[in-house]
């Protein structure tokens, strides 16, 4: 998966303004932001469209022993 975390850095970091309580930080960023966040939602849709989380806490039944580079 491509690491796009740099794109959302401003959404992840919390401003140090002491008068804003912690739980309001995220709201104030999204309200004040002049950036177009719609790209973020396109990214999420793309992720859901192209793949799914191919992981589960256990296997179903192991009948083949295929290694990564076979």
């Amino acid at each position, binding site marked *: *998966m*491509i690491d796009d975390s740099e794109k959302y850095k401003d959404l992840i970091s919390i401003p140090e303004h002491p008068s804003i309580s912690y739980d309001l930080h995220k709201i104030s960023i999204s309200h004040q932001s002049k950036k177009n966040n719609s790209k973020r939602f396109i990214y999420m849709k793309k992720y859901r*469209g*192209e*793949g*799914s*989380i*191919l*992981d*589960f*806490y*256990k*296997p*179903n*039944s*192991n*009948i*083949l*022993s*295929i*290694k990564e580079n*076979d």
Partner: protein
Amino acid sequence: MTNTYFLLFPSCVPVNGTKVSIIMDLDKGTYLEIPNLLHDILSIDLQRFTIHEIMKKFDHQYDQGIKEYFQFLVDNQYGFYTKDPKPFRKPEDIFYSPYKIISSVLAINTTTNYDLPEVLKQLDRLSCQLLQIRIYDPYDMDKLFNSLSPLKGSSIKICEVYVCYYSLISEEQLITICKEYPNVIIVVHTSKEKKQINISDEFNKKIVFTGEQVHANTKEVYDPSLFTISHSMYYESRHFNSGLHRKVCIDTDGSIKNYLSHTKVYGNIKENKISEIITKPKFQERYFITNDQIEKCKSCQFRYMCVSNSDIIKKNGKYFKKHTCNMDF
């Protein structure tokens, strides 16, 4: 040292074996081999006894070893020291799953005539999470493509499809299936050549061609590289048979079983709904026979990470697996 306690992290679980024990790290999905004696030490109620008291319990025979081992475990993030063990409670030893069926295996050959799309719909209604479809003989890929349509929007997270190689099989058709159904993983068995086709670089998804054969008598593979360590796997295997718990299988004739290789049949998919079969107490019996109750498995240090779907027989009041691993632990 006199009033210092050593505790394992709650996600680090010691498990004893016949020759050697381990500590499973459920967070990291790893394990560490340790001597059985250290397992005995770690099995003491560590929250009740200080390190000094533990050393006293062993008549101070192993003081140096205990000190070094505890430090080793701390250095490798399996445990920690504390002067107050009370706040550190052990997690509850429970397993909960909302799914009526967790996993299913279906088998298909040239004589199979049950309605595959209908079976997929029934499994979806039971919130089945994992599906494996074993196609033993050459099969029309267009038919497969259409039959898998109930997978779209279904509960099934992962669907492994084992397809039999034949000369007319088209890579394009296989790629189309994988792109149309993102939760499908295709393995082509009985292939003349071993290769892998990349579907998506982004998600590391491949179609694998293997020379190994998949047929009605294919046995399960037991290998440490296939063991699974996770919180859910550990707690499930403490209370249930991790392979057979909430699993339903349908063989090539439509017979409904706990697993394909079992002989006991509970119904037929052409006449019965899966939902009516899985609620029968007899069907659910094997759900509750854990590795802790089965001979050989109960003294294996890997019993909480090994998924086995073997049938279980009872002899002289003891449980045995019909097919066991040949590993000598």
